[in-house]
């Protein structure tokens, strides 16, 4: 099932199918490893509800939900 990364719940895993958007943020997300095929897992939502913490390529990355919206994933677990 395809979802936006921002819609995943804590503990859910997905495989990235596309990274939309443009500009420096889009490029930075790619560079940080959020490329097609990468497996991401939602580690945590910050205490105030935003940003989120994800695990990708064996490290932890945080990003805002508004940024995670542009990344599409196939839910795998």
């Amino acid at each position, binding site marked *: 099932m395809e979802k936006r990364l921002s819609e995943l719940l804590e503990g859910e895993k997905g495989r990235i199918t596309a990274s939309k958007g*443009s500009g420096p943020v889009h490029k930075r997300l790619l560079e940080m490893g959020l*490329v097609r095929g990468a497996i991401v897992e939602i580690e945590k939502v*910050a205490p*105030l509800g935003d*940003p989120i913490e994800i695990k990708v390529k064996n490290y932890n990355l*945080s990003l*805002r939900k508004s*940024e995670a919206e542009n990344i599409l994933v196939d839910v795998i677990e």
Partner: protein
Amino acid sequence: MKKITIAVAGNPNVGKSTLFNAFTGARQHVGNWPGKTIEKKEGELRHEGHNIKIVDLPGTYSLTAYSIEEIVARNYIVDEHPDAVIHIVDSTNLERNLYLTLQLIELGANVVLALNMTDLAEKQKIEIDEKKISHFLNIPVVKIQARKKQGIDKLIKVTIEEAGKKRHKKPQMRYGKELRPHIIELGDIAKKLNLSEGYNPRWIVLKLLECDDQVRSLVEKIDGGKELIEEVRKTRVHLVHIFGEDVDTVLANARYGFIAGLMKESVNKKAEGQLTISDKIDRFVTNRYLGIPFFLFVMWLMFTITFEVAAPFMDLIDWSFGWMSGIAVGWVASVNGPEWLASLIADGIMGGVGSVLIFVPNIFLLFMVIAILEDSGYMARAAFIMDRLMHKIGLHGKSFIPMILGFGCNVPAIMATRTLENKKDRLLTILINPLMSCSARLPVYVLFVGAFFAEYQGLVIFSLYLLGITLAILMGLIFKKSLFPGLSSPFVMELPPYRMPTLTGILVHMWERGSLFIKKAGTMIFVIVLFIWFLANLPMGVEYASQESLIGQMGSLIAPIFEPCGFGSWQASSSLLFGFAAKEVVVGTLGTVYGVGEEALVDSLRNTFTPLSAYAFMVFTLLYVPCMAVISVIKKETNSWKWPIFTVVYTTLLAWVVSFIVYQGGLLLGFT
């Protein structure tokens, strides 16, 4: 023998500083990159007759023109062409780290890959075959443990060998069937251009394909450059048509695809999906319910350590200055020296400098705590927890770190805003930073709180810090609405694994920042205290620091302005005037204008202030004009006079208005 230059590159939080310290020991000096405000560290190393210069590049994830750090790092490699570049990586996080390695190789540098934290990788059951990685990338690979200084000698040896090789000769990663012919074709055009020696034509092509503005404007200036740019544009259109994705995505996919292949062949992860220690700590530290209480606890701990632990050291310094002053005065009397000389030494020099240096323990401890928070990895969590809130006031979670540093000193804090990629974000953070109560304001609070609020010292001081924070938020909101409408910048940040901070790391950090304060205290404040002493003694013949002296006259002139705020005495005004130079000078000046020692000063203050007016005075001191050093650093960081002047005006107005409200409001509520 020729001098070898080696640059050290790497992601943040991979042990780059530790490696740099292991290489150079104490033989390092810290300066700035030319024309930039980013710290540049250099050091010397001798190894088997080789004279080696080591340059520490800023920590970056990539070499696009995303932040100033990235531009500085890549320009150094291109323009200064170091003989070799050591890329230090975190072995537990190889995949993302290797992205930078690929870029360094593409830049044409002689790269040596240093796999750091191999012990942690072993613990996580990650097996790394460095020979295979070396084969894949065509560069030497060395396993090291920077903290235990293991593998350092081998790393130097390999790097020296590599430094002797010609640059731009290494075979490069291939971009796949579809991309490769285009890159070669465009590369051939780029080769014919008159590029300066440091540039690798292939790298130029790749950057143009990625729409790198900096490279584009460089190529535009060269003969035939416009034609190349046009060819690249056509290729981009063609590639978008074929891949159905933008070229950035295509290139990033290709690079990570290559890395994935490398990982599969040379890295064996036996325990996938296991919870790391960091994850376990984070279950508690960034927990939905416990995260914020824990954060507040850390802030409280930071203050307690800074003030409680410092107390005995402060007493010692106080005592020794009194002792030295006594000896000096005794000596002047024994040789029948003039009375003014004794006064200059006791009141001017010892009194002034002593009353500043007494706060050195506070400041060092505060910087120590901040260093522990940074090195342990908690700072990033603090940004993670605070981002929602900071974002609401138009700031970034990362702005939180400079704001916290502002409690130490606004000068390094404003320098720390460089980690913010967005210019407007940075500017906003800089503008409200002076409202964070720096440690130089502490002497003023300590003095007044000791005199008027002995029973509630901690609480009263805490309320001032809180007031500063509240006003910073308020002004942030106002500035965001009025000066930077529509501002929003991304929050894409690594949460590095927790690590036990090392003693050396903390001491180095603490010393670098703390010594900034001592330098200020030692030179500028010394001069100012002497200046005040002279103002207090001129015109000739007046009684020392009396109302007839220059200092008294200046204070008297502006005193009526502060009458409605509760501190309209000429002494208060004079000390505020000099507080512009540096806030801690307020205390020194008060000592001078009342013409009394530290203990008697408290009595003098009790005669001229009430608890309410003392509080209003502290509020004013908190808010008005940041010191000269802050103004000059704002000028430097914003590269214009507009923002420092704006800061002076708005903070002074704010200070007057708030202390007016505090005093008059307090009177209405029946306080005195």
